[in-house]
């Protein structure tokens, strides 16, 4: 390709602040030429140790204290020092302005890669994707974390570290079950949280007490009312249910349950869009840096180092390789976005048949639409092409413990494409990956026991740790908690039960 003249960017491997600025400016220009819509961003240069700190607190700049983050820190530190693991090149925070961390140990080409990947790639995804728009308030998350940290620190001071720790342990065990999948969460804000916190605490307590006060006074009527369940519909958001209804929690405890729930919700879109998000960021760092190279701004040395890192990141080992650890979301995501561009620009007959609406269309418009309106599950169901399935040589295996052998269900051929695609899409459906557990009933007029029901799919059982989790639920609920499992034939069996002594006297106006 003929190189157009463009001011060369600083070469070499040592970075300086001036060089970072020059790179950011050039990459920003390239991004603008593709109409990439981003939040403004801040680059923060940090040391390796700070990167480990950031790792331990899930990348957030402020976070409350808990032993489990200490554990993550220690294990990261140990592996890093033994050289088993390089630190991630980048951490990027979905906030407005978007914060991207650059580690000081990185070479200049790596910093360029991180800027393109995080500060433009991930950043534009955070800004555009509907899940992030709906679930997270980028402008308020840091403030909310500050509030959470302060509140938890105050609670520790007032009630003791051990008590708060026990509560947080219990909440963390349920963090993945703290999401409303269908409702949008209200916007978070520091002032509002602080001001309304006390108000809400009082109100919540009153609500809970009310619930117990409305119990029918006569045992005679309870027989007929037995049919009415509470909650009326099964509730999938366990933490929300506990926050609103657990009879014995103090207001400050409810607030902490809420904090863990809110933060879990903030990370929910990230869990749902891993393939899309990482693939998007990889696609853009690849595209932006290649654009700059074609303009003559980057040296061959830069490109060689960049391409080596890039190739490592998007490598997919085959199923029988010792390095195989599932499908690499970077590899799949990057390949899919590249494939969509190919379908738009150079569609084959097969593509025209499979994707009539995008074949030959403007790739940037198609990209924006796909990036904004999908999550991993639907993205794969919509855009995974036969070409890509052949490239990855995908095949689908059924492992049924009722059979002696594994069965190959589908491979990358005409009869298998649709089955493969829907199977892979389902693999990214959080609802089928994680056990489906819902609040089923509360024995309002008896022992106040809480019954959770696991809706078993494909005879998949729960693992042993469920019993430990159940103890945490019982701690929060304060009374006996039961876990039942319902199979596909609607047979219900008791999985585990965690007994709690009824602590009379703790319940304000209840009877």
């Amino acid at each position, binding site marked *: 390709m003929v190189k157009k003249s463009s001011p060369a960017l600083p070469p070499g491997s040592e970075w300086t602040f001036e060089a970072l600025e020059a790179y950011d400016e050039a990459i920003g220009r390239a991004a603008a030429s593709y109409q990439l819509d981003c939040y403004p961003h801040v680059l923060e240069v940090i040391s390796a140790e700070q990167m480990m700190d950031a790792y331990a607190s899930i990348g957030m700049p402020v976070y409350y204290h808990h032993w489990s983050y200490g554990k993550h820190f220690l294990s990261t530190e140990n592996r890093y020092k033994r050289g088993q693991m390089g630190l991630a090149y980048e951490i990027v925070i979905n906030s407005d302005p978007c914060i991207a961390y650059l580690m000081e140990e990185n070479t200049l080409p790596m910093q360029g890669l991180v800027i393109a990947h995080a500060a433009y790639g991930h950043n534009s995804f955070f800004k555009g994707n509907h899940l992030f728009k709906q679930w997270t308030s980028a402008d308020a998350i840091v403030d909310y974390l500050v509030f959470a940290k302060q509140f938890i620190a105050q609670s520790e001071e007032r009630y003791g570290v051990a008590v708060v720790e026990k509560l947080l342990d219990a909440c963390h065990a349920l963090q993945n079950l703290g999401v409303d999948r269908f409702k949008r969460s209200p916007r978070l804000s520091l002032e509002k949280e602080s001001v309304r916190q006390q108000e809400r605490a009082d109100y919540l307590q009153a609500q809970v007490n009310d619930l117990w006060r409305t119990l029918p006074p006569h045992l005679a009527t309870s027989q007929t009312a037995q049919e009415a369940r509470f909650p009326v519909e099964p509730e999938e958001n366990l933490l929300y249910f506990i926050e609103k209804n657990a009879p014995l929690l103090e207001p400050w405890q409810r607030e902490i349950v809420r904090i863990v729930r809110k933060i879990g919700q903030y990370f929910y879109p990230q869990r749902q869009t891993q393939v899309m998000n990482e693939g998007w960021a990889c696609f853009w760092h690849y595209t932006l840096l290649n654009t700059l190279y074609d303009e003559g701004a980057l040296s061959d040395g830069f490109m060689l180092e960049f391409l080596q890192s890039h190739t490592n990141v998007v490598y997919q080992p085959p*199923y029988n390789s010792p390095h195989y650890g599932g499908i690499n979301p970077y590899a799949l995501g990057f390949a899919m976005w590249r494939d969509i561009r190919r379908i738009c620009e150079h569609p084959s007959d097969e593509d025209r048949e499979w994707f009539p609406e995008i074949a030959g269309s403007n790739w940037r418009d198609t990209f924006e639409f796909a990036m904004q309106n999908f999550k991993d599950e639907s993205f794969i169901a919509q855009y995974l092409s036969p070409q890509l399935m052949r490239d990855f040589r*995908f095949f689908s*295996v*059924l492992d049924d413990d009722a059979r*002696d052998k594994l069965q190959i*269900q589908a491979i990358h051929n005409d009869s298998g494409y649709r089955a493969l695609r829907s199977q*892979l899409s389902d693999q990214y459906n959080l609802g089928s990956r994680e056990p489906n557990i819902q609040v089923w009933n509360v024995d309002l007029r008896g022992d106040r026991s809480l019954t959770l029901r696991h809706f078993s799919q494909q005879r998949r059982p*729960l693992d*042993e740790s*469920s019993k430990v989790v159940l103890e945490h639920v019982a701690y929060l609920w304060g009374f006996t908690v039961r876990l039942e499992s319902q199979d596909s034939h609607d047979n219900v069996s008791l999985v585990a039960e965690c007994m709690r002594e009824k602590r009379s006297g703790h319940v304000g106006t209840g009877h």
Partner: protein
Amino acid sequence: MPLHIVDRRLDSKHKSSVNRGRFIERFKGQIRKAVSDAINKRGIRDIDNGEKIGISGKDIEEPQFAHGQGGAWETVRPGNDRFSSGEQVDRPRGGSAGRGGGKAGKDGESLDEFMFTLTRDEFLDIFFDELALPNLVKQHLARVEQYRRVRAGYTQNGVPTNINFARTMRGAVSRRIAVGGPYAAQLRALMAQLEELKDSLTDDDPEMQRLRAEIARLHAKMDRVPFVDTFDLRYNNHIRVPLPSTQAVMFCLLDVSGSMDEGRKNIAKRFFMLLYLFLTRNYERIEVVFIRHHTVAAEVDEDEFFTSRESGGTVVSSALKLMHKIIATRYPSNQWNIYGAQASDGDNWDDDSSRCRELLAQSLLPLTQYFAYIEITQGPPQNLWEEYTKLAATQADHFAMRRIATVADIYPVFRDLFKRKV
């Protein structure tokens, strides 16, 4: 959109130290056991380092609701190299590879040890905990080095009490000259001009008035140069230099007769470690000599010192004699601070114990800074203990002894030693 690059490298490190501390606090029981094992494995001279330890991964799991083994799973995998649809394939060995990614790995992982590295401070903290050291002593031992503050020139910032007036004023004078200099030259020129014109022109001549105004302006400008500026301030500078330290030699005397079992040796090891740690705080260079004895004494390396085990009787004086000989040949007492630490179960030949007392009193104690003896036993005291008791009565400054059953009893042996130095 202006770009912000923030350099955070100088921000507070150790953001995770609270979380790290919480983790260690929570699993103190397991960690303490791991540390104890580590101490038994490591050398006396390595006590002052951090340590990589492992605790059971099972204990520290964070449970979540998850699927267990079983049921039906269909998964898509990449890299098909031989399969066609509908084919039946044998389950790979282990039975898990056909299943959803990661699950089986997680189960296997949870049984592994969780490895991590304790820092030197955390390690010592747990070590001290076990030895039941008083806090003052803990601080003394954990401190890296002792420093002295000495004068070291002048700096431009400091606290008001440290202002050096002579330097400050000298700087102020130079600055006033330097800043006011150009005005002074102009002023002189204008004055000369004024002097020249005074005779030919009247006072209200505009030229005269212009000159006078100009002169007044320059005066005002010069007055505005401050007498002392913050820029002139100089402070006496102090820096910390490590205290001069000297060299010491530590003799470890261990009874390796048949009755000294592993448990007793581990107690003895901690006894030696504690003395070593104390010496590292006070001396720059420390040598350690290991002498083990049963009926005869020998100088050995550390490995052999703790691992070998002999049977037969015990002649304690043999070790004391060897120690004396080594001092005479290698560690002249005018150049070395000599410390002795002896551990035994108290058995000795009957007629040897009085010789031990004489040896200590007459030839060894005059040369040593401190000699500590522990008797690791639950039985009744024997003659060596009785003889040493006589010694302790007269030589309390240099000599300490104690009968101990657990590691927590070790510290009182050194109580006088620490009291003196702390």
